């Protein structure tokens, strides 16, 4: 989540409301001025709260820089401190604006509830925001994301969809993702990625094809992995092999990360930004797919048996000086 940019946009829009209608150029000028010094434009408790959340997220990003240097215990300690700090800032933000969607969402996520518990709480939060801010709507631009004040609620919805998928509620995940794609067709939050995995798990080939066409068949780590899983589950092995091959060729480190999953921390509040085709992309996709992969118990074994896949994984590992753990010892 790019909280700083959102804060600037929110403040500029609120100032414009005061000034009356502005030309596009004038609005851009205004945005530049806000960017220089956002705090000078904060004029109500709602924005004060949002600014606190933006600061907290910036601090969170910074505090993660040294994570690689920590051992497991130190990491867990640092993480706990980080989440406690985040929680405290969210509480502060909520004392200013009790319906600050991002503070409410981050507070829930930082509490480390079990995913099953989280589903219920996110459903409540979604209902609460709907009551406080009205239902999400596509708006004049055709995409709810264009209204920066709708974004916190959209993030809650996307988190709910991911948590539904995490708790094996794929029917719910599918309908929430489909709604999100209607509300916000440009899909900045990547509901289509959750949906791709969900359709693979539900073995819904027609649904998946529809989504793939909607994506212009451009593919990414989620889509390649979902297709491989879907074809494998449907027993269409030549197609499954082709999809797996595509995943291996087009997703940097994809083979490695499928055979050597690594810890990915809670998304705070949404999926981290990634470069298309990057190792991070494959890592996030494999992480989100994990419950579905485990539910298809021989899938990774089968993948590692496909010509070139294992070699590709080992090759990526060696070229990048990564660890290789014996899968039997995990």
């Amino acid at each position, binding site marked *: 989540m790019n909280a700083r940019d959102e804060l600037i946009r929110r403040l500029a829009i609120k100032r414009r409301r005061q000034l009356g209608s502005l030309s596009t150029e004038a609005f851009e000028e205004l945005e530049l001025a806000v960017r220089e010094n956002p705090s000078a434009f904060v004029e109500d408790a709602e924005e004060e709260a949002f600014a606190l959340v933006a600061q907290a997220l910036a601090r969170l990003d910074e505090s993660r820089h040294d994570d690689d240097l920590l051992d497991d215990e130190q990491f867990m300690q640092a993480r706990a401190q980080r989440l406690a700090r985040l929680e405290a800032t969210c509480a502060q933000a909520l004392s200013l604006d009790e319906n600050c969607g991002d503070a409410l969402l981050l507070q829930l996520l930082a509490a480390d509830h079990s995913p099953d518990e989280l589903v219920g709480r996110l459903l409540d939060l979604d209902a609460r925001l709907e009551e406080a801010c009205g239902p999400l709507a596509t708006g004049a631009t055709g995409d709810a994301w264009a209204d920066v004040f709708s974004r916190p609620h959209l993030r809650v919805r996307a988190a709910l969809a991911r948590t539904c998928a995490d708790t094996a509620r794929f029917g719910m995940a599918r309908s929430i993702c489909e709604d999100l794609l209607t509300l916000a067709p440009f899909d900045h939050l990547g509901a289509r990625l959750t949906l791709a995995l969900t359709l693979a798990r539900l073995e819904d080939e027609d649904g998946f094809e529809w989504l793939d066409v909607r994506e212009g068949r451009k593919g990414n780590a989620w889509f390649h992995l979902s297709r491989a899983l879907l074809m494998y589950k449907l027993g269409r092995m030549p197609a499954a092999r082709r999809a797996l091959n595509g995943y291996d060729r087009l997703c940097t480190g994809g083979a490695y990360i499928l055979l050597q999953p690594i810890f990915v921390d809670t998304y705070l509040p949404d999926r981290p930004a990634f470069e298309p085709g990057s190792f991070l992309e494959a890592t996030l996709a494999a992480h989100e797919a994990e*419950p579905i992969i485990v539910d298809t*118990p021989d*899938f990774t074994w089968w993948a590692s048996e496909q010509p070139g896949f294992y070699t590709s994984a080992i090759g990526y590992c060696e070229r990048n000086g990564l660890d290789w753990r014996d899968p039997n010892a995990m």
Partner: protein
Amino acid sequence: MAFDPQREDYQRLGLRFARSLDTSNPAEATRAFATFGRRFARERDTLPQSDGDRAFHLVATAAKHIDYELPFATDEEAENLIQHGHALLDEALQLDARCYDAMRMKAAADNPSFEAFFSFLTEGAEEVRRTCVEQRDHILANGESDERTLLAADIALRPYLRWIATQAEQALICGRNREAVRLTQVGLEADPHDSADMRFTAALAYAKLEDEQGLDALLLGPTATRGTRPANDPWTLLARLALAHKRYDLRAASDLLAELIRTYPHAAESLVRQIELPEGVFARLSVRPYSEDELVLALSEATVLLQEGRDPEGRGVLGVWLAGQAAQTLPRAVLQMLAEQAEANARAMGSSNQDGPR
């Protein structure tokens, strides 16, 4: 009704014995048949039997060892039971190269992965179907239309029904839920009375696919008369419960849980334990309807539903919820005992599993 290997062994020899009797002298035949039970139990070799019958007897004995004795055996006994069981299956195949039960049971042990076993079953299915259907049709065409002929025809088809039922179960375990549904539909067409209880596997697969309509059609549609019991078997209840939990209808899920607890003895304990049993290699274990064992068995097969999803305990989202809800209905002393048992089991598993889990 599941398949009971001992009973089927008895039925096979009984049918053959009856056919060998002189039908022109009913009194004599009745008198002779009165000796059958004793001879079956003690002087089996004096009864007429084909190589197929002999092979099936070995299969039934192997099934007794592997499916019914092994789960209760010590490590040492277990090794013997397995070896003996496999020797019996080898011998069965020497007697009857088309003893599909033996072939399938051997393959269950010989194939290293679910995937490999599933592929084996898929490759063999058509031949097994053809052979068994031919045998059945031959019996129906040449026999009188009496009960015995119908039973013999029924028995001829059973190896195929067990084959396809196993195939469907394996598909479910492999995460191939649509294939599991398709296979149960094929099986139910061949066996409209569902003597293999394939609808139980279908119910679990529909729950995995979150296809409530599919489940309703299976249970409420024109085929609802199949089977001799209402749809309150534990497979169907667990499938419905999983569906309710998946749509976050916790009220409905709790109601179904209460129904399980009302219907099955010691249900709460079983729901807390959630023991995972090995699948029966002959067929789904034959247990009494509405017994504690039946729920234990269904819970074990429902592992695919219980253990799915992320949860901090690694037990699966539905598994944790079920255990938590069921635990609330139990006194503290019982929970304490269950926890101690679980701990002891985990320790035992840990010591015998030092190579690490798969």
